[in-house]
């Protein structure tokens, strides 16, 4: 009987089950203890629990607000949405500029021009080895002192103003006529995509390359401008009233400092990813492209980059995720994104730390999940066929 029990204990499968049960019990015990203490603490300190606070009046103003209706009389839930939108806006801006800069620097690092190559290397080595928070604070302090006061704003055509508080520009008045402009923009983009498809097809079939840049300019840029001028849609212009600008819309200086620092920092990693991607392309590919009579630019654009991007894009997408997470450092300069608004201001007012921080984390988790989903789809699509 005893030996049987002993042999049962030494059975690998039985051991595995025992171990897992033990792990679950230990974790459940600690979780229960923590929860118990938490309830007790909350009760003692008189903190509310639950998500009722989301419907309370927020009571604070928000600096940057783009599409959503928001005023201090709005609820905390609306403040939460404003935070998410602002996080996404700074992340997308940062991603765009980081990608452009990273692409340029990454290619420059492999340039045959000594000066360009060295400059790219110096840029990467400097900015990658300085903590992002330090960079954000640095650019913020520079921006505050370098730009003029609102009274002496840098003035573009009396409609766009740049000063130490931010960039002020006209806002469309969303009424009847303006929807024509929007509609023409959408129509222009759709038309351009159609033409692009057509020219790609023509290229595949006949090998004739059509220059479609004029089409792009005409449809996507010129058409909306013409419609705007003809339809008589109105813009609301910012104007200096007292010490600051009223009317129009603005991007705060905090936004610029944050977006600038995030782009500069992420671009160094993106540049390195692109460089290693290009280096991973077999030398024979470049030689073959040259033998086919492609120019250097053609070879880069049509032979090397498509293959390099397959290697480079997964790490680049990872950098997009990092950039989005780093945008939470806005809390240090006060750009009103999710962490600043919600885990900062709302938390201070309401005091319900657990609910608020969990909601904040959930937003970032969702963004991470969406990005890794995109990454997986990309990896599936990009797998070399037939292998």
């Amino acid at each position: 009987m005893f030996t049987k029990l002993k042999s049962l204990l030494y059975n690998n499968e039985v051991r595995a089950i025992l171990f897992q049960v033990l792990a679950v019990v230990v974790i459940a015990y600690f979780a229960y203890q923590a929860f118990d203490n938490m309830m007790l603490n909350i009760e003692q300190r008189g903190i509310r629990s639950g998500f009722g606070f989301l419907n309370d009046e927020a009571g604070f103003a928000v600096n940057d607000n783009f599409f959503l209706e928001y005023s201090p009389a709005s609820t905390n839930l609306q403040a939460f949405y404003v935070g998410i939108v602002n996080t996404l806006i700074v992340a997308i801006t940062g991603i765009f500029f980081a990608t452009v800069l990273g692409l340029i620097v990454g290619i420059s690092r492999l340039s045959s021009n000594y000066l360009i190559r060295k400059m790219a290397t110096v840029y990467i080595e400097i900015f990658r080895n300085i903590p992002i928070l330090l960079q954000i604070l640095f650019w913020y302090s520079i921006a505050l002192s370098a730009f003029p006061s609102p009274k002496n704003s840098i003035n573009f055509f009396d409609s766009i103003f740049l000063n130490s508080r931010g960039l002020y520009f006209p806002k469309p008045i969303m009424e009847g006529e303006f929807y024509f402009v929007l509609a023409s923009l959408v129509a222009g983009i759709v038309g351009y995509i159609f033409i692009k498809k057509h020219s790609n097809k023509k290229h595949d079939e006949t090998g004739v390359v059509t220059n479609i840049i004029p089409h792009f300019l005409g449809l996507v840029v010129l058409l909306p401008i013409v419609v705007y001028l003809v339809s008589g849609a109105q813009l609301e212009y910012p104007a200096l009233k007292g010490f600051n600008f009223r009317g129009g819309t603005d991007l705060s200086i905090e936004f610029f400092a944050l977006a600038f620092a995030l782009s500069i920092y992420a671009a160094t990693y993106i540049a390195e990813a692109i460089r290693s991607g290009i280096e991973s392309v077999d030398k024979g590919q470049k030689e073959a492209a040259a033998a086919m009579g492609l120019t250097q630019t053609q070879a880069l654009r049509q032979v090397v980059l498509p293959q390099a991007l397959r290697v480079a894009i997964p790490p680049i997408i990872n950098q997009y995720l990092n950039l989005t997470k780093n945008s939470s450092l806005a809390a240090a300069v006060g750009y009103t994104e999710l962490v600043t608004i919600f885990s900062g201001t709302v938390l201070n007012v309401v005091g319900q730390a657990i609910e608020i921080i969990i909601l904040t984390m959930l937003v970032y988790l969702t963004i991470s999940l969406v990005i890794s989903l995109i990454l997986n789809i990309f990896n599936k699509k990009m797998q070399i066929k037939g292998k």
Partner: protein
Amino acid sequence: MAIYPLKETRTPPKSQTKAIAWLKDNLFSSISNAALTFVALYVIYLLLPPILNWTIFDANFDLTADNQSCGREGACWSFINANLKMFIYGFYPKEELWRVNTMFGLIAVLVMFGSLIKKTQYRVHYIIGSFLIYPVVAFVLLYGGLGLEIVETDKWGGLTLTVIVAAIGIIASFPLGILFALGRQSEMRVVRFISVIYIEFVRGVPLITILFMASVVLPLFFSAGMDFDKLLRALIGITLFQTAYIAEVIRGGFQAIPKGQYEAADAAGLSFMQKTILIILPQALKISIPNIVGSFIALFKDTTLLLIIGLFDMLAIVGAASSNSSWLGRETEGYVFVAMVIWVILYSMSRYSKRLEVRFSTEHR
């Protein structure tokens, strides 16, 4: 038999050896290349003079100057000089600074002594012994006790705090990281599930939310009597965060080990523990060392986030020092100084990790 005397070697043509040839090859090989060179020169012309003017030519190097006499055209380096102790030690009492210095000095002594007995059989004992004893000694030196005056953790700061947090973060997250890496590899479903959830959760959220969690929510989980030190809370947060990243690095090491190693260990009749500790871990850790250094670099950068939860790491000292009424408005000097210090540390670490990568690469070239 004809004899062919060696002809004198001709020197290469001048256009191939002199600086002109180098310039032609590297900067002006084609028209577009020359254009690029001019663009680059123009960018340098735009950027370099203002930077040099501010840091050097217009700067005031008089280390005794005060904020007024310094002037505003260039940097005022006496700001750094006046606050240097704060940048390095934070608010640690002046009479007790020797304790911090001793703590750092001991590391140098340990490393030097270690390199002396590197070749002897006591190497492993020495390393394990120092890892067990040194932290205790360091803690007593910094915090106090045993006859030393107690220095509360809110007095700790500056570069000292940065280094301490980074070191504790990496050392504490290491064993935990190994556990979670093993858990993620495990065939036991529940264990694997828990590990995957933990790792992916932590990697999916910004460090700042975890630090908030640790500083605001964590105390709620313990009974009211327990008073949590602010630094301890931050350390818990950083360790939990770093664990997930270390786990992923080590998992990468596990996956790089050929399957034959696992099978051979099984065939030799080793138990799971023996297999893991004697065969798999040593190889996996060796492969992952460059990435562990990389992860340490990231952690070192992340310690700057301590300022957001109100601890005074080196970056936070800039704010503290330049909000002092006698040094108002000198943030830029502070940021530049801290950036240079951290840059030197991080750059040397990343060089080191590159060297390790080459040394440990078993790939045949």
